[in-house]
């Protein structure tokens, strides 16, 4: 359908732009490689001194790091370039130019800029998950499919939060780098929620829902997620998407009626 063709077109354009800057490509591949490597190094070094973190053993932790890498890769190549641009559009007054085009505005701003070469993390993340699954003998198609589904829904939650934060740009043009909150969140997601003190676990599950974004898909890959858990994850994503989209339209209508 048309939306899909549009997304593919954005992707192709972004790819062409990226290929102009070869050094950029090399640098981002190097960054992906090293950051994944360092994450694994950290994990292995921690397990040199302990046998489990928050009750999770090494294969589970590797899968968790894998999920984190995938989500971070998606942030770097999709969420950050596209959604961060919204504040710029508002500030430069370019949003109007986007809105007069006959395309769903949310689609337009969400997929406009994709920096494909940051996707290196995604590949490495997949490898990590597969390794973890192999080590735990949970490498089945069903688990993989469920994990993939829940990664998507976790990202959907992150996307909705980010979109909502970017929508704030309609009211506060000086909102600056909202992305730092997302990056910090992802760093905390490298560890299972159970590794944090009791008082922090509630926050990390329901308020800053890192549990849904990283923990749940990782557990699915390990074959440790029951259908209730999966259902909650999917529902959370659906709710988040609906709320995010609603907030965007709300912000847009306020913006259109207020701007001169």
């Amino acid at each position, binding site marked *: 359908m048309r939306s899909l063709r549009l997304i593919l077109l954005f992707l*192709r354009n972004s*790819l*062409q732009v990226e*290929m*102009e800057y*070869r050094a950029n*490509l090399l640098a981002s591949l190097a960054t992906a490689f090293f950051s994944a490597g360092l994450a694994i190094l950290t994990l292995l070094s921690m397990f040199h001194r302990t046998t489990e973190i928050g009750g999770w053993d090494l294969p589970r932790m590797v899968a968790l790091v894998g999920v984190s890498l995938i989500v971070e890769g998606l942030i770097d190549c999709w969420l950050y370039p596209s959604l961060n641009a919204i504040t710029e559009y508002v500030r430069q007054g370019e949003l109007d130019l986007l809105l007069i085009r006959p395309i769903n505005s949310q689609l337009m701003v969400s997929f406009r800029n994709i920096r494909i070469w940051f996707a290196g993390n995604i590949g490495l993340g997949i490898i990590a998950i597969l390794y973890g699954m192999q080590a735990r003998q949970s490498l089945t198609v069903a688990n993989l499919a469920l994990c993939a589904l829940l990664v998507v829904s976790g990202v959907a939650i992150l996307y909705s939060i980010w979109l909502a934060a970017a929508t704030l740009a309609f009211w506060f043009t000086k909102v600056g780098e909202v992305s730092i909150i997302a990056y910090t969140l992802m760093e905390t997601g490298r560890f299972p929620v159970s590794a944090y003190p009791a008082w922090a676990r509630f926050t990390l599950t329901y308020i800053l829902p890192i549990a849904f974004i990283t923990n749940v898909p990782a557990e699915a890959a390990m074959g440790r997620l029951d259908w209730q858990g999966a259902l909650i994850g999917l529902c959370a994503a659906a709710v988040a998407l609906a709320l995010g989209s609603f907030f965007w339209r709300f912000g847009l209508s306020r913006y259109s009626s207020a701007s001169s």
Partner: protein
Amino acid sequence: MSAVIAVRGLRKEYKVHHKEGGFLGSVKSLVNRRYSTVTAVDGVSFEIAEGEIVGFLGPNGAGKTTTLKMLAGLLHPSGGDVSVLGFEPKQRHTDFLRAITLVMGQKQQLAWDLAAIDSFLLNRVIYDIPEDVYHRRIGELSEMLSLQQVLNKPVRKLSLGERMKCELALALLHQPKILFLDEPTIGLDVNMQRAVRDFIAAYNDRYRATIMLTSHYMDDVEALARRVMVIDGGRIAFDGDLHRLIAEQAPKKVLRLKLIEAQPAARLSQYAELRRLEDLEAELLVDRQRVAETASRLLAELPVADIAIEEQPIEDVIGALFKTAPDRKTVPSHQPVTT
């Protein structure tokens, strides 16, 4: 008269990579980069004496800004010699930097979030200007550019014109002996342009500063510069008196007629080349020697209400110069360099 700026055989080349269009072209350029060498400045030589104001004209991409930047020490020449006040600009000696200034339209020195006066204060310390001298100069510059209301406002709240004036004042705070002005009036309205022009002339007058100025606006050049250098394709196409340029290149003058009765174009064309005819207004191009003769004939034979004799607009003159010069467009010398 000793030259404060002496340039000989100045050259600047740089590499640009070529890319084909389309997706396939992008992929190809990823793997196999083809470079070619572009010559921005191709053997330029001139000398400028103290106190001269020189207009530096040329189409976009002709090498004006590149030359100025080499004179200011921002770019290293690919070849040739350049000496400014006895210094080699690229060495960027402190004494050299204290004696020059470069004003570029879009680049700014003013700190965006602070009041203009704060940037002035910083420059005062950097250029080691004694306090009394500093206050005197601020007073003078404020007066010459009408900055009194503006100095204490945050720079981001100033209009473009006010900002440009502050930039200009800031650039001149340390009383440089040599001014390189790259499009100093670009983006300003007519009044502001006139104010800046008057200021530059007054500065040159008062301090005997040497000024090199590039501009797209012929009014700038006409008002300020007696001498012009025309650069095209990285080479000097003309260097001399502005009016000589006009006389040499524009052997014609413009006769502007206001008619009492409309006349057919064919009739007017019998006297001279008809440039424009609109209702009762006509413009004719006439050879200089024959201006008086043609004018009196027109007055005698046609119902003319008013007649004016004018120079050809400089734009035409300069434009014609570029067209008639032997082909000196930058020809990229193709040396495909693959990495």
